[in-house]
């Protein structure tokens, strides 16, 4: 039975492991932003013995590249990008303690296994609702890789940021089950 709830971050493992596919969750607190180029750089950096630009333990990463902020606003349009492109990098970060990912789109079996193994969670935000989502972001700071522009790593403060649990640590996947429910024979 799916639930609707508000959650305060960080996303500790006792919280992430209790979430189930279909739950509608409003997140409040700190999340980190990274997409393609930032992931590539983070993972290559790890191989060279460098630290990540933020502590991934109990952290949530939002796959997103915003449009520029107008004056007086923390950020521009800020909806999710396709998570599939980060599949190559996500298991490493999950094994290091990352507890949540926000994106849209399908994940690889390797990522879904890493979600189960680490009692983490994959959330979807509504793709293409960047203006609406931007209003739930109260603060945005670039904390690494400034040269990557829209792909820089950011720290966001969000308030009641709406996401839906797609994949949980029990192996449930809303993209599979919900679609089955509405498929015509």
């Amino acid at each position, binding site marked *: 039975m799916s639930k609707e709830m508000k959650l305060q971050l960080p996303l500790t493992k006792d919280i992430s492991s209790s979430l189930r596919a279909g739950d509608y969750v409003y997140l409040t607190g700190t999340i980190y932003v990274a997409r393609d180029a930032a992931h590539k750089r983070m993972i290559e950096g790890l191989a060279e013995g460098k630290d990540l630009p933020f502590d991934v333990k109990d952290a949530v990463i939002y796959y997103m*590249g915003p449009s520029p902020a107008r004056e007086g606003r923390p950020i521009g349009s800020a909806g999710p990008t396709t998570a599939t492109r980060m599949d190559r990098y996500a298991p490493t970060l999950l094994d290091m303690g990352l507890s949540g990912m926000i994106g*849209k789109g*399908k994940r690889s079996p390797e990522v879904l296994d890493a979600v189960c193994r680490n009692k983490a969670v994959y959330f979807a935000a*509504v793709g293409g609702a960047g203006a609406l989502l931007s209003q739930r972001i109260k603060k945005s700071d670039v904390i690494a890789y400034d040269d990557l522009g*829209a792909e820089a790593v950011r720290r966001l403060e969000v308030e009641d940021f709406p996401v839906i649990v797609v994949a949980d640590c029990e192996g449930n996947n809303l993209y599979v089950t*919900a679609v089955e429910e*509405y498929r015509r024979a």
Partner: protein
Amino acid sequence: MRELEVNKITEAVRDMCIKINHELSDDMKQALNGAEASEKSPLGKKILGQLQENLQIAESEMIPICQDTGMAVLFFEIGQDVHLTGGDFTDAVNEGVRQGYTEGFLRKSVVSDPLIRENTKDNTPAVIHTSIVPGEQVKITLAPKGFGSENMSRVFMLKPADGIEGVKNAILTAAADAGPNACPPMVLGVGVGGTFEKCALMAKQALTRPVGTHSEIPYVHEMEEELLDKINGLGIGPGGLGGTTTALAVNINTYPTHIAGLPVAVNICCHVNRHISVVL
């Protein structure tokens, strides 16, 4: 012979870039509204409501509808009695894109080389298609294209024996594979016939045709309606989270082809299907 200064093109392109990234055309707004009314899934209905709220916020607060403000794709129909003066046509178009994306606070999503991947920081160059038509006007159509859905697009080089069923299967396969990645409800632009590149170009052009209009060829019109119904039966739904609204339209364009071939291109666009035209 009519003379047209290319700086008029720059101005028009700039204004179109800003407008269409903040306000969808009426056909798309109506389609989303209709979808919310007919959607069977409660979560799907909620998402369709949020997408419309998102459109209102985008327009009133001047926040782009989607953060992926796209790569600028432009179609120019240039009257053969027009003389373009005052500079290089391509430069003028790119200058319009540069001004629009910079002054409009739109995301710069273009890299200068597909493998070296350095951002050009002004969203140029655009992808520009020109055709020469009778008359002395210039019609510009801009369709900024996001890549979540572009990445799910396909070209199928079918064979004549595959026939209409092969074409239908190709379109259905592309929609099913796109699933949640393409930000459904999606719009499908389809090109059937021509050559390898012609069918892809037709598919892109088909996305600029207003949702709710149909091909003038009766069997193609029928195929558009049949496929829309079948795609909505896939169950993918709004956001890919289940439901009866997976696509808003299937627009199919056709062209003569070779005796040995049946090319089919399916260009997928998300619900932020941006297209705008002006005539100079």
